[in-house]
C-alpha cells in the first residue's frame, strides 16, 4: 500500500508541475464563472478532503460494529471451552493425586504434579498458538473499542493480530473489509497528507521568512490562487505577490522542507505517543515508543497493544477510552506520516535532480564553459576545484 501511496504522491506532484505551466494559458473568467468555480470548489473540497476524513471514521465505526457482532456475539468460543474442560480435567486429576498420596509425600506429589502440569501445558500451548486462545471469552474480548482497533488495523494494514477472526464469516468479512478499506485509506492519506503538507509548508516558510510571498500561495496570471510547490519555485519568483523583492536573480531559494524537519515531526509524534502509552499501559518508555513506531509504519507486530485483551486488570471503561484514543492517535498519525512522506519525496527528488545535474554538468565540463555551474540550483560539490 505504501508503494501505491508513493506512486500517487509522485503523480500528484508532477501533475501540479504541469498545471503550473498551464496556468498562463487559462482565459480570464467572468464573475459568473468565478462564482460557479467557487461553488464547485467548495463541494469538491468537502467531498474530497473533509468528506474523506468523515468517511474513514464512519467506515471504522461500521467495521467495529460489524466485527463486534460477527466475532464477539456470534463468535467461536471453542478454544475457551476446550481450555475450560482441560482445566477441569486437570483439577480432577490433581485431586486424585492428592487423595492417592495419603501420607502427602511431598517430593512424589510434586513430581506427579509437575508431570501433570507439563501435559497441561502441552495442551494449552497449541490452543494459544493456533486457535487463538486468549483466556477470555470472545464476547468480552470483542468490546466496541477493541473491535474499533481491530478494524483500524485491517484497513491501515497494520494488522496487530492480538485480535484475529476465528469464524469463517469473520475471515471473509475481514477480507472484504480490507478490499474496500485500503483504497479508502489511500485516499484519506493522500488528501489529508497534502493538506497537512501545505499547512506545514506555510508555517515553515513563514517561520523562516523565505520570500515566497507573504503567504505560501501565489496568484497566477488568471487570478486563481495556488499553493506553492517545490517545482514552481523559480517560476513563482517572478509572479509572486508584492512582498517578493528582487528575487528574480536569486538562484537557489529553498522551496522544499528539509528531510530532517519531516523526520523530526514524526519523531516528536512517536515520542508523544510513547509517553502517553507508557503512562497508561505501564510499559517502559522504550516499549511505548517502539509500539508507536511499529504501528505508524504499519508493521504492527501485535506483541504490545493497548488495552488488556489478555486479562482485565484495569477498569473496563478506562481501557475502552484508552483504546479509542489510541485509534484516533493512529489515524492522525497516519495522516502525518503521509504528510512527511509527501514532503520528503519532494525534497528527495529535488536533491536527486540537483545531484544528477551536478554529475551531468561535470561530464560536459570539458566541452562547455565553467559558467554552467553558476546556473546550478545547488552548489556543486566540485566547486572547490573550479
Amino acid at each position, binding site marked *: *500500500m*505504501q*508503494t501505491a501511496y508513493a*506512486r500517487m504522491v509522485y*503523480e500528484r506532484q508532477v*501533475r501540479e508541475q*504541469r498545471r503550473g*505551466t*498551464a496556468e498562463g*494559458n487559462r482565459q480570464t473568467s467572468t464573475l459568473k464563472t468565478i462564482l460557479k*468555480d467557487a461553488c*464547485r*470548489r467548495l*463541494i469538491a*473540497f468537502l*467531498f474530497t478532503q473533509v468528506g474523506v476524513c468523515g468517511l474513514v471514521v464512519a467506515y471504522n465505526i461500521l467495521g467495529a460494529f460489524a466485527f463486534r457482532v460477527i466475532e464477539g456475539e456470534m463468535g467461536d468460543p471453542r478454544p475457551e471451552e476446550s*481450555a475450560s474442560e482441560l*482445566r*477441569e480435567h486437570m*483439577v480432577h486429576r*490433581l*485431586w486424585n493425586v*492428592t487423595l492417592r498420596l495419603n501420607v*502427602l509425600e511431598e517430593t512424589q506429589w*510434586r513430581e506427579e*504434579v*509437575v508431570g501433570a502440569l507439563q501435559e497441561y*501445558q502441552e495442551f494449552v*500451548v497449541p490452543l*494459544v*498458538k493456533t486457535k*487463538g486462545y486468549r483466556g477470555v471469552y470472545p464476547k468480552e474480548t470483542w468490546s466496541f473499542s477493541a473491535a474499533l482497533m481491530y478494524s483500524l488495523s485491517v484497513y491501515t*494494514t*497494520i*494488522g496487530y*493480530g492480538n485480535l*484475529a477472526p476465528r469464524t469463517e464469516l469473520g475471515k471473509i468479512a*475481514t*477480507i472484504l473489509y*480490507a478490499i474496500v478499506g*485500503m483504497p479508502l485509506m489511500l*485516499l484519506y492519506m*493522500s488528501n489529508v497528507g497534502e493538506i497537512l503538507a501545505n499547512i506545514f509548508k506555510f508555517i515553515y516558510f513563514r517561520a523562516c521568512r523565505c520570500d515566497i510571498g507573504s503567504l505560501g500561495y501565489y496568484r497566477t496570471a488568471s487570478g486563481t490562487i495556488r499553493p506553492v510547490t517545490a517545482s514552481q519555485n523559480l517560476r513563482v519568483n517572478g509572479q509572486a505577490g508584492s512582498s517578493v523583492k528582487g528575487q528574480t536573480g536569486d538562484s537557489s531559494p529553498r522551496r522544499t522542507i528539509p528531510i530532517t524537519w519531516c523526520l523530526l515531526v514524526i519523531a516528536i509524534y512517536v515520542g508523544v505517543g510513547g509517553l502517553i502509552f507508557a503512562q497508561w499501559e505501564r510499559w517502559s518508555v*522504550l516499549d511505548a*515508543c517502539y509500539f508507536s513506531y*511499529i504501528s505508524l*509504519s*504499519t*508493521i*504492527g507486530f501485535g*506483541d*504490545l497493544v493497548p488495552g488488556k485483551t*489478555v*486479562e482485565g486488570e484495569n477498569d473496563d471503561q478506562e481501557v475502552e477510552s484508552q483504546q479509542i484514543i489510541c485509534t484516533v492517535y493512529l489515524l492522525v498519525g497516519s495522516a502525518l506520516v503521509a504528510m512527511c512522506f509527501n514532503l520528503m519525496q519532494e525534497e528527495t527528488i529535488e536533491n536527486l535532480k540537483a545531484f544528477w545535474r*551536478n554529475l551531468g554538468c*561535470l*561530464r560536459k565540463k*570539458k566541452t562547455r564553459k565553467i559558467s554552467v555551474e553558476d546556473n546550478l540550483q545547488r552548489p556543486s560539490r566540485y566547486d572547490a*576545484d*573550479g
Partner: protein
Amino acid sequence: MREEENNCGNCGYYFKNIIKFLISHIGLVSLVIGYTIIGAFTFERLESDHEIKVKQNMSSVRKDVTDDLWGITDHMEVLNESIWAAEVRQRLKDFEKSLIKAIKTDGWDGSEDTTKQQWTFAGALFYSIILITTIGYGHIAPKTDWGKVITIIYAIPGVPLMMLCLANIGDGMAHSFRFLYWKVCCYACTKRPKKKRRVRHMRGSSRRMYDDMVDTDMRGLQRNRPSDRSHQTRSSQNSKGSDHLTPPPKEDDGRVAVLFNKYALETEGLPADNGHMVTENDRDIEGRPERESKRSRRDEDPDLPVIHQPRGQRTISGGGYLDSPQMPRSPRSSERYSRHLPPPADPRSRLSRLDEEYYDDYEDEYDEEEDEDFVGDKPVPIWLGVMLVVAYILGGAALFSGWEGWGFLDSIYFCFITLTTIGFGDFVPSQNINEDVELSIALCSIYLLFGIALLAMSFNLVQEEVINNIKTMARRLGILKEEEDEDD
C-alpha cells in the same frame, strides 16, 4: 586545472553510471538482499540469547505453580474437595495466563527445547523480510531493548528500500506483461487474413475516420504539411485547460509531414473536415512511462513523427476515452495513432467501430517495425489485473493448505492477509511443521515477495483505468469540473 576537471568529470560520469546501475533492477534487488542478510545476522545475535532464557524460564514457572499448589494443599487441614478445587482452578488459570503471556509478549515459541530456536539465521532472515515489507506477523519479534531499538533504526531505511525494489520489479513486470498481452491480443485480433478488404476498408472508413477525428489541430497540421510550424504552436495553445502538448521538436518537421503523407498514401482523398478528434489518452503513470515512451519514440520508425505528448492531462483524455463505451477496442492501435497526433481538445469525441477496425488493419501493416515501442501506455483491462491477483492468491492458498495442513479458506485468508501486508500472525508458515522449518520459511518468503511485486504490477496496469472510471463517475455526478483535476 583542465586535467583535474577531466578527471573529476570522468569521476562524475562513472559515478553517475554506477548510480544508474544501482538503481537498476539487479542492483536494487541485491541491495535489498544484502540488507536483509545484514539484518538477519544482527537480530540473531541480539535476540537468540534472550529466547533461550525464556525457554529455560518455563520450567521455573511450572515449579512456581507446583509450589503454590503444594501450599494450597498443605494449608488445608481438612481436604474439602470443592474448596480445594476452586483454589486449584484459579491457580491453573493463572498458570494459563502466564503461558499466554510468555507466548504473546515474551516471544516464547511454545517448546522448551533449547536446541530448536526461532531466532536461528533463517528465522532472523524471515523476521527481517517480514519487518521491511511491513507485514509484521509478530510471532517472532524483538524482546530485548537493543533489539527493539535496532528494529526501529533498521526499518527506517529498510521499508522505503523494499518498497522501491518491489515497485521497481513490479514496473518491470508490468511492462513485460503489457507487451505480452498486446502481442497475444493483437495476434488474436488481427488474425483475420483479409488483406484485400483491408485496403478497401481503409479507404472506405478513412473518410469516416477523418470526419470523426480531425479537429482544428489536425487541420492546422495538415495544412501546414509543407513547412509551417506556427500552427502547431497555436494548436497547443488552443487546447483547453492545460498544456496538452508541447510544440514538437524542431527536427520533426519533416516527420510530421510524412505522417500525413502516409495516411494520404493509404487513403486517397484525405478529407480535412471538421469533426471531433479521436481520443486516446496517454494513460499511464507519469514518471516512468515517460521515460519508456521517449525511448521508444527514438527507436521507432523514423518515418513516423515523434510528437511529444505530455502525460499530464489524463483527466480530459481519460474522460473522452471512457465516454466511448466500445471497449475493448484495440487500444494499441488507437493509442499509437494518438501517439503521433496531438491529443484531442474535445474530450467527448467518440470512436466508431469501423474506425477501430481501421486501426486494427492499419496497425497490422506496421506490426513488425513498431511492436515493442508502443507497449508503454497500453491499458490492460481491469478484470485481467484483478484476475491475476486472484489467481495468485488461490494458487498460494492451494500450496499452503497442502504444505501446512490448513483448511482452504484459512489458506486463502492467510495469503490475502500476507499479500496486503496486514499480517496478523495468527497463521504463519513453519509454525506447525517440525521438520523443514527453513524450507517453509524460504517458500513463504519467496511467495510473499513475488506476490507483493505482482500486486504492484497489477496496480500499475489497472490504475489508470480505475482512476479514469472514478473520475468519469465523479464528473457525471458533477463533483469534478471538466478541466479541473481536483483529486486523483
